[in-house]
């Protein structure tokens, strides 16, 4: 019953993705749609997509929720995992084993960082923008202290490189992993009790508390999931760049928020769909690569992102539901 009305956001994002693809095909030609370029573009989506999903969950939770610590935690998780495992040559693992161990450790550290966020925000009641700004600096600081500020070079590990680049069934494994994670998050939100409670809590925190929804535990869960996704992002970064560094992707903080807002996740909480986040991340990547193909200035790209962000915020302000005929008219004194 909930989705009888068409999701304008979803439709709009599909149209935007298609429009960019068509424009790129017209201007650049078939080169843009070659399997190699499609894989190359897809391979760039997971990092930002995972961080945007984290921001999305924090936003759905309401109370102006946001997660600024995502990329800092991704870098820290990857660095910690690498420092424990040691260089590939000394670790005694096979390539695949090394990748799995790196993933397991990085996700664990991501979870731990998420618990820190969740406890500060959920149990101590600190506003999330302040709390995650603090933990962002904390995570960055730890990463700098552990590495002395220099990059940790992993060297060439074929299995790790393949994970982020070698297409399996059309797309690199990292992309399939991202889609799998997105599917899990969507299922959690849609099918489980706590997922539904999250939307309710985001819509009205006070009502949720009086209705007996366990807000604190729910917030902890949200930031733990966001942290785990940051841990996955850390491994994908390591695989793509063969290195780990504390300041990689500092511009991602804002881009992740942009993706979430483009996807129609309401900053005031209670609303947002995972598929829209995935599509928004794709649209942004298509646009970026399109601009790179056209050899346009990267400032123009920042400008275009800014325009997109404002346009989507403006569209969200327009409430079309009043024009929808199915909605019963309400009368009586206001």
């Amino acid at each position, binding site marked *: 019953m909930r989705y009888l009305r068409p999701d304008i956001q979803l439709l709009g994002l599909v149209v935007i993705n298609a429009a960019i693809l068509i424009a790129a095909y017209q201007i650049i030609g078939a080169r843009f749609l070659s399997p190699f370029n499609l894989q190359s573009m897809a391979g760039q989506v997971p990092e930002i997509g995972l961080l945007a999903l984290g921001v999305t969950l924090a936003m759905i939770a309401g109370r102006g929720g946001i997660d600024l610590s995502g990329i800092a935690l991704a870098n820290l998780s990857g660095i910690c995992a690498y420092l424990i495992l040691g260089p590939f040559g000394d670790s005694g693992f096979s390539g695949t084993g090394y990748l799995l161990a790196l993933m397991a450790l990085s996700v664990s550290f991501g979870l731990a960082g998420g618990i820190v966020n969740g406890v500060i925000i959920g149990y101590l009641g600190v506003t999330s923008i302040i709390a995650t700004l603090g933990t962002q600096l904390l995570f960055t600081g730890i990463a700098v202290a552990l590495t002395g500020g220099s990059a940790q070079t992993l060297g060439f590990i074929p299995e790790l490189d393949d994970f982020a*680049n070698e297409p399996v069934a059309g797309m690199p494994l990292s992309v399939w992993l991202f889609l799998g994670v997105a599917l899990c998050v969507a299922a959690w939100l849609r099918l489980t009790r706590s997922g539904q409670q999250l939307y309710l809590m985001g819509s009205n925190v006070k009502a949720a508390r009086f209705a007996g929804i366990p807000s604190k535990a729910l917030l902890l869960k949200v930031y733990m999931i966001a942290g785990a996704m940051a841990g996955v992002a850390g491994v994908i970064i390591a695989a793509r760049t063969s290195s780990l560094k504390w300041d990689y*992707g500092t511009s991602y903080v804002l881009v992740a928020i942009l993706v979430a807002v483009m996807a129609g996740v309401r900053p005031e909480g209670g609303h947002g769909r995972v598929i829209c986040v995935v599509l928004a991340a794709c649209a942004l990547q298509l646009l970026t690569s399109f601009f790179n193909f056209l*050899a346009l200035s990267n400032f123009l790209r920042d400008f275009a992102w800014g325009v997109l962000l404002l346009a989507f915020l403006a569209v969200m302000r327009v409430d079309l539901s009043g024009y929808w005929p199915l909605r019963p008219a309400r009368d009586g004194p206001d």
Partner: protein
Amino acid sequence: MKHAKTLMRTTAVAALVAASPAMVFADTREVVTVVKVTGENWFTRMEEGVVAFGEQNDTINARQVGPGRADAAQQVAIVQDLVAQGVDALAIVPMDPSTLEGVLRRARQQGITVITHEAETLENTDINMEAFDNTEFGAHLNSKLAECMGAEGQWTTFVGSVGSLTHMQWAEGGIAHAEANHPGMELVSPFNESFNDANNAYELAREILRTYPDIRGFQGGSAIDVIGIGRAIEEAGLEDSTCVTGIGLPQDTGQFLDSGAVTAIAFWDPKDAGFVMNRLVELALNGEEVTDGMDLGVPGYESVSVTDGPGDGIIVRGQAWVDVDASNWNDFPF
């Protein structure tokens, strides 16, 4: 159905029209210079060299791009898109060499020639070009500083970031020189990171002046460090009691050289560096070998030294530094 066919035909024709310019200039080779960040004077000057080279060579289409923000992740994304486009060669000034190893390895597997600048540790490059030996340059900056300070008192070093290899080599070269030759110089709070931002350098310099009121010397790392430090020193009215040396551009630093806030700067001309990188690209594309003592036709690069790099590539070094102070900064038009 008929409409769909017409539409497809139109699309196909449009695509052909769009693709045809590329066919006409099929023998022009696409060479892209990727810099750390667009819009900084250093790289604007470098673009002059890239453009000049392109104008002199009909067979090479040379252009320069770079991220709008100094973030290694954005540079990796640009390089990845260029590899997907299938350019013939890349000339790269890496933000952080280790983050590019993965994407450059794939670029070379695709047969793309890779030339780098300021990346002595990078393995996946055909030729890395350095204007000079970095440790010697750091020692040179330090000897200028010591001369001004009378080899006595507290001093500190700035770097763009602790991940910027050349900046660290200059700072460390300077520190080693001071330790070996000037026991009266006391290093305090070394490796301040300006993140290639004059405002950050200014704020940092103000902090340092507050923390160490007796400080006498600053050695800058990023090209804009001396500007920020100079501004802080002018504001504090310490032009006569402090010394500042570092890399910088003459026109940017001129007012501070005149006021005495900055003692002396040295630099290598980014225009020449941009030109020489593209010249090396041309040699590599033509299959010519770069040999010890070779003349690349640009002052300072008339007799280059060639050594083995960390990977299977080579390192080419010139002797291209220029000393500038209040007396001669106006001789340089940039």
